[in-house]
């Protein structure tokens, strides 16, 4: 039993990473209705910017805020330059655009900051949390930040005018335009926010997995999986999905014999596919009713 509790705790700690990433994924999905394959690379690039600022002697929290601002602006610029002109192109062309963005960001980061592993500081320290060996203060802080972020997003979408406008623009663009919402800018805003949330995720993850251009590869995959598991239309679902994936990954590794690190990923993914087959809209997603 103690082993079980410990593994669940450790799972929650890794799950917090996936939950952060899943939030960013859901955010962009709300705005543009696609999964952004370059999301992980954008977060990695933001984290490198923060690292560079800290290297130049900027205090952590100032660097944190600056990075958020830069990422927000960067997300909007990418949308305006790259994806606005493609607005009427087929969906699959958009996906190709994401892959292109992925290749460019990864390659530029590799050339600028090279591929050696870098340490990234944590604002929470890395002592054991409340005397537990399984969760460090950093991981506890990460869970806390994820939950606060979730609350803020909930408040933003639920109680502000602009949040309401964004939801309207995402669900029925034509009608939203008719009531005077600038749909184009709502999409750009969605990109900016997704990019900033990705930056937070990146800065929280970097102390655990270390900073390098390929750090996001596996994490983004888990982030997608969590988001899809929880339901792509629900930020709350995405966070729960993230924790569930983290816990499940750890339990599989512990209790099913013969499953080393190698098979963790396929099994976690198999679970997700199974969940989707039973409940195609995810655990907390809305059912989309289609008209003929």
């Amino acid at each position, binding site marked *: 039993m103690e082993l079980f509790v410990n593994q669940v705790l450790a799972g929650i700690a890794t799950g917090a990473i996936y939950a952060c990433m899943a939030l960013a994924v859901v955010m962009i*999905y709300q705005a543009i209705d*696609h*999964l952004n394959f370059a999301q992980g690379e954008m977060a990695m690039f933001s984290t490198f910017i923060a690292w560079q600022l800290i290297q130049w002697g900027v205090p952590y929290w100032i660097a944190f805020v600056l990075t958020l601002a830069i990422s927000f602006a960067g997300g909007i610029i990418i949308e305006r330059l*790259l994806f606005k*002109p*493609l607005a*009427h*192109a*087929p969906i*699959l*062309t958009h*996906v*190709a*655009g994401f*892959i*292109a*963005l*992925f*290749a*460019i960001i*990864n*390659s*530029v980061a*590799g*050339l600028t900051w090279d591929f050696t592993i870098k340490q990234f500081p944590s604002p929470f320290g890395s002592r054991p949390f409340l005397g537990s060996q399984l969760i460090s203060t950093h991981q506890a802080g990460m869970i806390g930040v994820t939950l606060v972020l979730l609350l803020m997003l909930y408040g933003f979408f639920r109680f502000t005018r602009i949040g309401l406008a964004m939801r309207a623009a995402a669900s029925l663009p034509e009608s939203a335009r008719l009531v005077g919402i600038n749909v184009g800018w709502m999409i750009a805003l969605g990109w900016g926010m997704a990019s900033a949330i990705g930056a937070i995720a990146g800065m929280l993850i970097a102390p655990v997995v270390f900073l390098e251009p390929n750090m996001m590869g596996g994490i983004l*995959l888990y982030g*997608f*999986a969590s988001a*899809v598991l929880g339901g*792509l239309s629900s930020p709350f679902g995405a966070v729960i999905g993230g924790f569930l994936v983290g816990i499940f990954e750890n339990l599989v590794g512990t209790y099913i014999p013969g499953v080393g690190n*190698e*098979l963790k*990923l*396929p099994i976690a*993914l*198999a679970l*997700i*596919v199974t969940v*989707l*087959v039973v409940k*195609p809209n995810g655990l907390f997603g809305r059912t989309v009713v*289609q008209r*003929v």
Partner: protein
Amino acid sequence: MSTIQETVAPAAAARVTIRRSVSTIAQIVVLLLLLATPLFVKNFVIFQLTMWLVYAIAIMALNLLTGGSGQFSLGQSAFYALGAYTSAILMEHADVNYVLTLPASALVCFVAGVLFGLPALRLSGVYLALATFALATAMPQLLKLGVFESWTGGVQGLVVTKPDAPFHLPISQDMWLYYFTLLVTLLIYAASVNLLNSRTGRAMMAIRDNEIAASALGVNLPLYKTLAFGISAAFTGIAGALGAIVVQFVAPDGYTIQLAIAIFLGMVVGGVGWLPGSLAGSAFIVFVPNVAENISKGLSGAVFGALLIVVIFVVPHGARQVALYGEALAKKFLKNN
């Protein structure tokens, strides 16, 4: 009324003949180029051209699935790997002739495709993308499993013997494999075109355009959707088998998600739903990385990405758009003369 018909009908007929003749001429020219090129280039270039055809088959298979039935797959590398391994194991452990391994790979992949297509029936859009993505990431790990190691060779993979040209033809192994691959490509192309023009193909395209309307018209959705998955997987398996024979080597890490992404990119660049575009798409994924590497070693990824963006900005519908433009130009030219 009759006068209008009389004037319209010949013009329309003429337009159809021009259209037919333009595309027939284009097809013949491409075929002649494909037949003649290997005679004038080095063995390594022949090898690259063969791989180009192999990927073109894989892209065509994905085109049948996405362009034909509207289902999306990021898991093509899994079927490619399955085909490659089936062929390699049959050749190395059972001494089967390489030509006979192709139908065997197709059969194995068809069954796998249908089995995967069944749960995929309930998924669409991003959910299907994620499920197929999961398949692609799981495949290399499954191939490495200790249980199968006596057949698959585990992480090490298997070395495949390169076949000689039959009937003592005085051509090199590479050149023989090229012509063999070309023959298979043409057969699969013909099969795909006929499939799309058949009752089955029309049913698939009806599903692509509107599932609910299609089912209201009596199209059996589960049957045709799984069938599309099966056929696409079978053709991808043939591509994988050919790839294994040409490269003479199979290993789990040759069939990662990168391969699935490359096949997907090839389809987009070639034009979704346009089969001849598969050749153009395949050329993009085989040759452009080399070009990018030549332009800048450190930034090859960025150059590749930038070229991809240029392509999707200039021609968002891929090579199909270029072909339509070319056809319009040719027509204008023929009319003026």
